[in-house]
């Protein structure tokens, strides 16, 4: 697949946006404006952007908790992602989800999940839903190299294969699950080989090669859409930062190993491609400047957005109309339920 320079520029900008956003998120976390767990995807931009480029607008996306990059590449405005990390109503999850639970149903992004591999059965079910509705789209389900050792992986892949569901499992193999290397966690280190246990097509490629990723993802998603054939795509990449902002990331890998990867930064690689195609340095620097401005603005937008009101504590928990079902539960209710939950938007 040849990618037009104009397209390559866009993808490069997305990669820059992710990197700059993650860098800023770490800064804001350390400034205590972001709480909870915060997992950055710096270094995984080519894998993220390449795969998302192959995903149609009508397709569905499900990911784990390392999801800032996927949300941004899916087109969720940086303002809304940053506001979510700040826990503000302007966030893409209304400030209720935070870093791990980004989502945007209007863009077919069904979350941002925090239980390792818990998103796999759900992605399988979304694909089942597509089939039952006679729709021709596919589901892209991200997981990590560590997640592949959970039972949910096995059950989901078997169901997807037996039921011929249009779902592509995207393994972001960044070589570690927290501090555990793939070698220490998995009996086969070429993770894509596990697809053979379900007779599913699978491929393992350099996840830092933007174009190769986009091509492989396009092929697999097409098979899912057109032949209802599930697939497994393993992208070999690397996590530049620690597991989360709280992890220095040096206890289980050497400085040298990290530097080695930094030297082959996927962003430099794409910058190189654009340079080859005649895009000037000034032009490339301008792109970076505009992305930096965008991220800076997202921080301001987040600050300008108010936190959710305490009165909305129970909002969304139950469907509209549920409040009347719960009305008779008040007597003897635990202390505070009356004010916090029953008056807090329960099922209204």
């Amino acid at each position, binding site marked *: 697949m040849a990618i037009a320079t104009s397209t390559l520029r866009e993808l490069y900008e997305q990669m820059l946006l992710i990197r700059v956003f993650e860098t800023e998120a770490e800064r804001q976390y350390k400034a205590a404006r972001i709480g909870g767990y915060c997992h950055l995807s710096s270094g995984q931009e080519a894998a993220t952007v390449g795969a998302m480029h192959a995903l149609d607008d009508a397709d569905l996306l499900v990911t784990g908790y390392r999801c800032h990059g996927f949300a941004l590449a899916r087109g969720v405005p940086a303002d809304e992602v940053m506001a979510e990390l700040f826990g503000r109503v302007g966030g893409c999850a209304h400030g209720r989800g935070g870093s791990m639970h980004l989502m945007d149903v209007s863009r077919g992004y069904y979350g941002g999940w925090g239980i390792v591999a818990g998103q796999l059965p759900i992605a399988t079910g979304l694909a089942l839903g597509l089939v*039952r509705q006679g729709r021709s789209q596919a589901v892209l389900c991200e997981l990590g190299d560590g997640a592949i050792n959970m039972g949910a992986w096995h059950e989901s892949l078997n169901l997807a294969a037996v039921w011929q569901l249009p779902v592509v499992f995207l393994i972001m193999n960044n070589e570690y699950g927290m501090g555990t290397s793939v070698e220490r966690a998995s009996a086969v280190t070429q993770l894509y080989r596990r697809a053979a246990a379900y007779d599913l097509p699978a491929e393992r490629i350099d996840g830092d090669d933007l174009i190769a990723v986009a091509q492989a993802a396009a092929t697999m998603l097409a098979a899912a859409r057109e032949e209802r054939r599930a697939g497994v795509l393993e992208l070999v990449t690397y996590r530049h930062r620690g597991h989360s902002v709280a992890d220095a990331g040096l206890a289980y890998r050497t400085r040298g190993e990290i530097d080695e990867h930094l030297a082959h930064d996927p962003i430099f690689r794409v910058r190189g491609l654009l340079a080859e195609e005649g895009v000037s340095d000034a032009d490339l620097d301008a792109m970076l400047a505009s992305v930096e401005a965008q991220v800076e603005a997202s921080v301001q937008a987040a600050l300008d957005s108010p936190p959710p009101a305490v009165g909305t504590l129970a909002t969304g928990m139950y469907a509209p109309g549920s409040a009347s079902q719960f009305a008779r539960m008040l*007597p*003897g209710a635990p202390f505070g339920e009356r004010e916090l939950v029953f008056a807090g938007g329960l099922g209204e």
Partner: protein
Amino acid sequence: MSTTDTPTLVDQPPAAQGFETMTYREALRLAMREEMVRDERVFVMGEEVGVFDGAYKVTAGLLAQFGPDRVRDTPISEEGFVGAGVGAAMLGERPIVEIMTINFLLVAIDQVVNHAAKIGAMFGGEARCPLVIRTPNGAGNQLTAQHSQSFEGWFAATPGLKVLAPATPADAKGLLKAAIRDDDPVLVVENLAIYKERGEVPLDPEYVTPIGLAAVAREGRDVTLVAHSYATVRALHVAERLERDHGISAEVVDLRSLRPLDVETVAESVSKTGRAVCIEEGWPSYGVTAEIAARIQHACFDDLDAPVERVGMAEVPMPYAKELENAALPNEDRIEAAVLSTLGRGQ
């Protein structure tokens, strides 16, 4: 198994009238059949629900009527297919997932508690999870330690879920239909011993039992028995015995719904009788009856003439031998003894 061709909506049959006496099992089947006819988004999924006609025959005949796309046999993969139900529900489908018995729901509980229950809140209402999980609990057939349990209280403890537990064929139909039509994840707790219970069931396809409303299954003056599912059947038998053998008038409150829990109906009854015995099929410590007793002591503090009593399965992993199992069950003798003791007529 081809599932590409989505079935076309079947016309509504003329609303049937009157009542028919049927088993609890048949009432559940009727509810599913009616809702599948009414709404083609409804489909059934689980182990042996199709070709085998259901491990306990609740889904018998549905495959023949609706085909493999709407009555889907699954591999033995509870975590996988419960999660598949969650995902399909997020897309607006209305899966009814059968778990062969509640003991096996533990391998899938992460999908129910950590996922299904969280969706409405995590998505701020933008995505919902109209999933129904049907599963029987209970002991009584010498099924031994791993197959004789009742975990419904754990799900009732989970905000984001709704938990229903019908005790009569009529409610089996009405509450299962309410669950299927509800937009939230609902666990419908059935019971192995109750499947064969018979009763009158309204044939009207619009017969739906409201969620969150307990029922006074029997009126009485001296003591209130609070129960759900099969324990309600036991309670009603004991109430008869108490009337006959001791001239004691027992009121029986059938909870029907554990989350939401209708404390008002329970409190009204206990305020009237001044005494309560709470009964469940499972282990009472940290169980359903703990919550009921805690609510009663709070809501009826000034009206209670005696401490709230609780009866449930003896707190041991259920042994196989019939003699041991009989002793461990919340049988009518143990319930009656509890009532007599709360009335100061104990041994």
